[in-house]
């Protein structure tokens, strides 16, 4: 998608990222409309790398991001900037694998599961110290998990009913039922380990100068401007991190980020506009990466409106939308048309799920089978200034007109649109879901179950008892093979009933100076900057 899509295409409902990026777009996209990107990219110019020392260790990495982090308290984090910053300072017992499909041991060396599948015993790595030099113990882990269970991300540990610390290097987690997503849940950013009792400090004091086991620690944070991390001298991975410092600059405007990269002021920029990707790739000294992501972009339809409570209407809409033109015209080809609620980067993705692709004839047949065979008039709500979703809305408008549905496009500011969704006072609106862990259970309950995931099937009020049962079965099943078949059923059922009309999957785009080495982004988005070097 274009960069404003990254900024703005994000959903009102599913993730905090959406709001931030939208904010960025709403406030800023207006100043330099999308077309400027190509002007900028087309103008050639040499770039001067900000670091040209030739060394492979040390240096300051300047990283321009869309938004400022909201917090550096992992248990309170919701927006991606906070999450990704926290995960450089604090770490979890397990972490997501680089393909996003599972978890791997990180601060733990492994686990044992009891025969009743309700007791998980984790063994901590022996060589881990916090950034103040003190050793990591099971008490720290117990404190962290219990603290996280009081924060806004508490739901992720809802199955946990007790934590024991039989030894300094052993943590035992008890669950109320056998719980399939537990390893994923443990790898959630909100469970990144903090020192026991925050070393006796109050939250505000502790997070002025926080202590963690991660490769970097906080050096300074000027809110709205920049956040600087410095190397943790006690880091447990030998020889890492290579960098001395990382400076995160907050640069909401996508074109400005591109200019800062081209002017040599930034080493890495987040989300260059997709419209500028090919030009940036052709610029000497700059490289662009499109990392596969878990981001799923879809349309929510409010089922409190009778039209959308009719499954045939939802199916007709899915068949009516030409996703190839969305990807080609709006995302400049940098995305993948999609129809399943799971993207290929999700664990348990099933490639054989039926897809209700563009097929106007079938769309008309579906509409004929509905209670609205002659069509109806509806409204598609987007965030004002969101050029990507605005363009997508126009394609959908034309597609739906072809089958007899008249769709008006209405713009709102992001908070207002959020409010309309919570109050079920909208018809259709675009949204996005992303995973932070290697387990789909982070999002599935929120996306397609009522009264279970917290936001009522992504504010669609889609209500299906079997879907709810499958969602819970997938949680209560530990065997990955068994879970795979349950999630396959969920994907099939979501495709058949279309509670959400999925449009496309888009990668995480980053542009860097050629002098940056080893920068990698897993599908969950949390980059490991301890591996990065500057040449």
């Amino acid at each position, binding site marked *: 998608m274009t960069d404003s899509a990254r900024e703005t295409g994000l959903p009102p*409902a*599913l*993730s*905090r*990222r*959406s*709001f931030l990026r*939208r*904010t960025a777009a*709403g*406030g*800023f996209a207006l*100043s*330099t409309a999308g077309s*400027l990107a190509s*002007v*900028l990219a087309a*103008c050639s*110019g040499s770039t*001067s790398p900000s670091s040209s020392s030739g060394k492979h260790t040390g240096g300051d990495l300047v990283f*321009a991001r869309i938004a400022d982090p*909201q*917090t550096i308290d992992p248990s309170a984090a*919701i*927006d991606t900037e906070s999450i990704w910053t926290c995960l450089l300072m604090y770490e979890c017992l397990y972490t997501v694998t680089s393909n996003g499909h599972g978890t791997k041991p990180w601060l733990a060396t492994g686990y044992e599961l009891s025969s009743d599948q309700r007791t998980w015993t984790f063994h901590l790595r022996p060589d881990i110290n916090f950034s103040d030099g003190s050793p990591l113990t099971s008490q720290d882990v117990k404190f962290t998990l219990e603290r996280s269970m009081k924060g*806004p*991300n508490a*739901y992720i540990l809802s199955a946990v009913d007790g934590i024991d610390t039989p030894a300094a290097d052993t943590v035992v987690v008890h669950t109320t039922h056998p719980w399939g997503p537990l390893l994923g849940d443990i790898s959630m950013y909100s469970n990144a380990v903090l020192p026991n009792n925050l070393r006796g400090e109050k939250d*505000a004091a502790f997070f002025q100068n926080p202590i963690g086991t991660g490769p970097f620690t906080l050096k300074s944070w*000027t*809110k*709205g*401007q920049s956040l600087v991390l410095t190397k943790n001298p006690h880091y447990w991975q030998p020889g890492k991190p290579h960098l001395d410092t990382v400076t995160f*600059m*907050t*640069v*909401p*405007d996508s*074109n*400005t*980020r591109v*200019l*800062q990269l*081209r*002017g*040599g*002021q930034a080493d890495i920029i987040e989300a260059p506009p997709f419209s500028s990707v090919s030009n940036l790739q052709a610029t000497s000294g700059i490289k662009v990466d499109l990392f596969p992501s878990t981001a799923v972009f879809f349309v929510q339809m409010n089922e409190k409106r009778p039209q959308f409570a009719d499954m045939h209407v939802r199916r007709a809409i899915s068949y009516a939308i030409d996703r190839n033109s969305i990807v080609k015209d709006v995302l400049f080809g940098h995305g993948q048309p999609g129809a399943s609620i799971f993207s290929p980067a999700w664990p348990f993705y099933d490639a054989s799920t039926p897809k209700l692709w563009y097929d106007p004839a079938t769309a008309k047949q579906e509409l004929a089978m509905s209670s609205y065979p002659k069509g109806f008039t509806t409204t598609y709500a987007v965030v004002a200034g969101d050029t990507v979703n605005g363009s997508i809305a126009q394609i959908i408008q034309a597609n739906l007109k072809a089958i007899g549905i008249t769709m008006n496009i209405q713009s709102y*500011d*992001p*908070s*207002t649109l*959020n*409010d*309309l969704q*919570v109050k079920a006072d909208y018809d259709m609106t675009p949204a996005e*879901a992303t995973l932070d862990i290697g387990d789909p259970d982070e*999002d599935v309950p*929120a996306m397609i179950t009522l009264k279970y995931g*917290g*936001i009522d099937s992504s504010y669609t009020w889609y209500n299906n008892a079997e879907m709810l049962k499958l969602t819970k079965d997938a949680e209560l099943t530990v065997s990955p093979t068994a879970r795979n078949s349950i999630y396959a059923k969920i994907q099939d059922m979501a495709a058949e009933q279309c509670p959400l009309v999925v449009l496309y999957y888009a990668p995480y785009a980053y542009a860097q100076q050629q002098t940056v080495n080893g920068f990698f982004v897993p599908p969950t988005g949390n980059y490991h900057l301890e591996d990065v070097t500057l040449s």
Partner: protein
Amino acid sequence: MGRGIYIIRRLLLVIPTAIGVTLVTFIMIHLIPGNPAVTMLGIRATPHNVALLDHQWGLDKPLWQQYWLFLIRVVRGNFGESLFYSAPATGIILSASAVTVWLIVYASVISVAIAVPLAVVAALRRDRFADHVVRAIPLVGMGMPSAWVAIMLILGLGIKLHVFPVGGLDPGIFGHISSLFLPSLTLALGIAPVLIRSLRSSLIDAIDAEYVTTARSKGIREYRVLVRHAIRNAIVSSMNILGLQIAWLISGTLVVETIFALPGVGALMVNSIYRRDFPVVQGITFLLAIAVILVNLATDIVHSFLDPRVRFE
């Protein structure tokens, strides 16, 4: 009435104006739909989490009580905690204001530096080639949107020639001077045309005025006639225009702050409105209202020094 009493009376008027502005802002931001807790929590916006945050932020109290608490805090010089950053709003607003104040002062200086020489040349060479060129500049200048001017300056001076940084704010006085040059120039190019026009026409009036003829007849040198008599008188009316432009700049730096990635008040205000970060929005509105009032007052006072005929009533 003397100047002192006038100033005191104008300063006292700031109080009801500021209360009026904050009251209107308060009512408006609470009238528009959107709950900061829902916005902030996103996928985690369960009714339980929302209620917890509403309580923590005092948003479950009656509106009049919330406004009263806000006023009490303002009197103590404190705008409350930013909902988004969980940090004192005052500090966040002040650090953003510093950037914007720098920008405005810098832009004013540059615009005067551009406008005065050009206007003088145009007025002295009235209806000749140089005058036509200078008079064409405002037409072209006013037709160029600042977003476009900014990008062109970045491409030319930032990326091609590497003379100035393309964005962001470098620390230190010299860092500020260098990194704020392009954004200030962008703003100055927006104000200068109006200044040139007004200064040129009032200079022409002054040059034709009888007191200039008198000065010349006394044998005063032409340079001194120009500087002491003509320009000083001509600048009075342009001073008012510059004051109005500064008041406009205070609320109009958003585009430039955005393009140059400057963490100023404009960007903070827009983001805070989107986030429904009530304390920050109210704090900024309050400070902006006061700033605009004070700039207008300062313009009047400077005017009175430059033009002794001005009397306060």
